[in-house]
């Protein structure tokens, strides 16, 4: 009720010219109350204040990894959940970010921030090259083509040992520093990484609720019809692929400068598949769902160390259960459940 009142006063206070344009029912052309935005405004400060309440501890380390993987998951969620393009190359782009930035840093002695920016440029160019070729393909064929790219990157990382350190990887990667302030502890990194995640999430939320987001969803549903409305489908697919891949490589760069060490495991195929799995569990048509999935799997990973050997079995089981009970992901399932609950409560109140 309060929200409605606020809407009305808001529309009354707009200038007369706008008031005339919005003729009959001006309240409907106002932006609807954006629940995602509201959730963002509430959740962002609570995440950033969390360590101030709970203090230092191991959980900060876990939260940092959740943040890093969230960035990858957000990128894939945009591509797969909204654009409908299944790509198994996100671990490859994560690895590109995780290797290129330290290599620039260690070999040419550039500042880590400069190196991170440069490596995103390189990742974007790679994504453009790959995307322009493989996005001609659809469905399974696209998945297989991107998977081969992942395999190529994985092999290159192991074989080019003069550049990547081979199986030993790269160590003593300098941490990020902001004007002399070194981001070298879990505690300090926490604020940086979570600010980045929430900003990237906000960018994603803005994007999917806009002209461009509508075109992505249209492409997912029916490419040929989307092109009938003047959309250059191919161009949009490539752009989305680049954006999504840069999310992954950005996460990779931050990861490398955070743990100060990278090894070939960063680019493994299993990682690419895990990210898809995480999105399927959380809900691939919701950006929040992707993050929830990451949090769920990461926490599972951390606190079930004793069951490490059965990790994949547990993942598989979780996926099967999700698919059976929440085919659109856990978050969507919760939302539907809450809606049904509210409706039945209302009904109960009326009778």
């Amino acid at each position, binding site marked *: 009720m309060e929200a409605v009142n606020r809407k009305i006063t808001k529309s009354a206070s707009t200038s007369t010219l706008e008031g005339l*344009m*919005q003729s009959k029912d001006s309240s*409907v*052309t106002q*932006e609807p109350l954006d629940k995602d935005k509201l959730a963002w405004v509430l959740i962002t400060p609570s995440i950033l204040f969390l360590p101030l309440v709970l203090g230092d501890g191991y959980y900060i380390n876990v939260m940092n990894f959740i943040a890093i993987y969230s960035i990858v998951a957000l990128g894939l969620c945009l591509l797969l959940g909204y654009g409908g393009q299944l790509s198994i190359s996100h671990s490859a782009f994560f690895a590109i970010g995780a290797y290129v930035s330290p290599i620039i840093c260690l070999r040419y002695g550039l500042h880590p921030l400069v190196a991170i920016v440069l490596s995103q440029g390189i990742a974007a160019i790679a994504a453009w090259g790959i995307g322009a070729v493989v996005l001609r393909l659809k469905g399974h064929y696209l998945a297989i083509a991107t998977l081969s790219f992942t395999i190529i990157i994985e092999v290159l990382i192991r074989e080019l040992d003069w550049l990547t350190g081979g199986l030993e990887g790269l160590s003593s990667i300098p941490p990020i520093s902001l004007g002399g302030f070194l981001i070298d502890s879990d505690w300090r990194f926490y604020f940086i990484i979570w600010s980045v995640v929430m900003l990237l999430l906000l*960018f*994603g939320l*803005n*994007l999917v609720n*806009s*002209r*461009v*987001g*509508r*075109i992505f*969803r*249209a492409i997912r*549903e*029916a490419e*040929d*019809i*989307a*092109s*009938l*409305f*003047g*959309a*250059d*489908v191919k161009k949009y697919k490539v*752009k989305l692929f680049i*954006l999504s891949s840069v999310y992954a490589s950005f996460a990779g760069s931050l990861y490398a400068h955070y743990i100060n060490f990278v090894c070939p495991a960063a680019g493994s195929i299993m990682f690419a598949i895990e990210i898809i799995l995480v999105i399927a569990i959380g809900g691939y048509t919701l950006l929040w769902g992707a993050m929830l999935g990451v949090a769920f799997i990461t926490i599972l990973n951390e606190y079930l160390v004793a069951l490490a050997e059965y990790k994949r079995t547990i993942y598989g089981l979780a996926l099967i259960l999700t698919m059976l009970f929440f085919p659109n992901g856990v978050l969507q399932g919760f939302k539907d459940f809450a809606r049904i609950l509210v409706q039945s409560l209302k009904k109960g109140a009326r009778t």
Partner: protein
Amino acid sequence: MLQLNRVTKNFAGLRALSNVSFEVKEGAIKGLIGPNGAGKTTIFNVITGVFPPSEGAILFLDKDITLQRPKEIARVGISRTFQKPHLFKSFTVWENVMLGRHYRTKAEFFACGLRYPWAKREERMIREQGLGYLRMLRLADKRDRIANKLPMGEQRYLEVARALSTEPRLLLLDEPTSGLNDYETDQFRDILFEIRDMGVTLLVIEHHMKFIMSVCEEIVVLNFGAKIAEGSPEEIQHSPEVIEAYLGVEEEID
């Protein structure tokens, strides 16, 4: 406005259209009728670039558009609806029309993701204009429903609204009244006149004879991919070729 010159379309030996020529004048509502399989929808597909004609040329506003692709056709100012509605099923009614505004607007990745002020203004314009087209098709009350959940008749209305929102000069309607009840059909007649009065030229494929005879000034009749008659509704109704195509010819039985 639109001219078809000796358009022929072959599908692997099957001649779907042979030497079809006709013209649609600016501001007209032109009908396109014929028995099933006569090639009516093929004409729409050829005009909108779904597949190019095998021979012949198509001119729109004196420009050759014969080989244009669908995404370019929208930009020249031709929009269409389908025999079976092809809506974006998971979109709301409103979003379907908003998508139609796509190429008339220009906010791209960063403008949308960072919500530049001008992109916000543009988005508000898209919402308002979309709502305007929904009002015109009597769908404004249902704007937040999922498109797929609408009854068939309203899905057809929505397709028209979405096609209109691209601001076409020429609108191609493929059997707009099939699946409409009598009340909706009458209402749709008024809507067609409203659309024409907006300055949009219409080419309508139709099976509903009473409807097409009451809205069109001129009608083209196709049979087996060839044009067999063209003229006013009265002329068509009295043309022996048309009667033959629809009712068949009497055969003498010995």
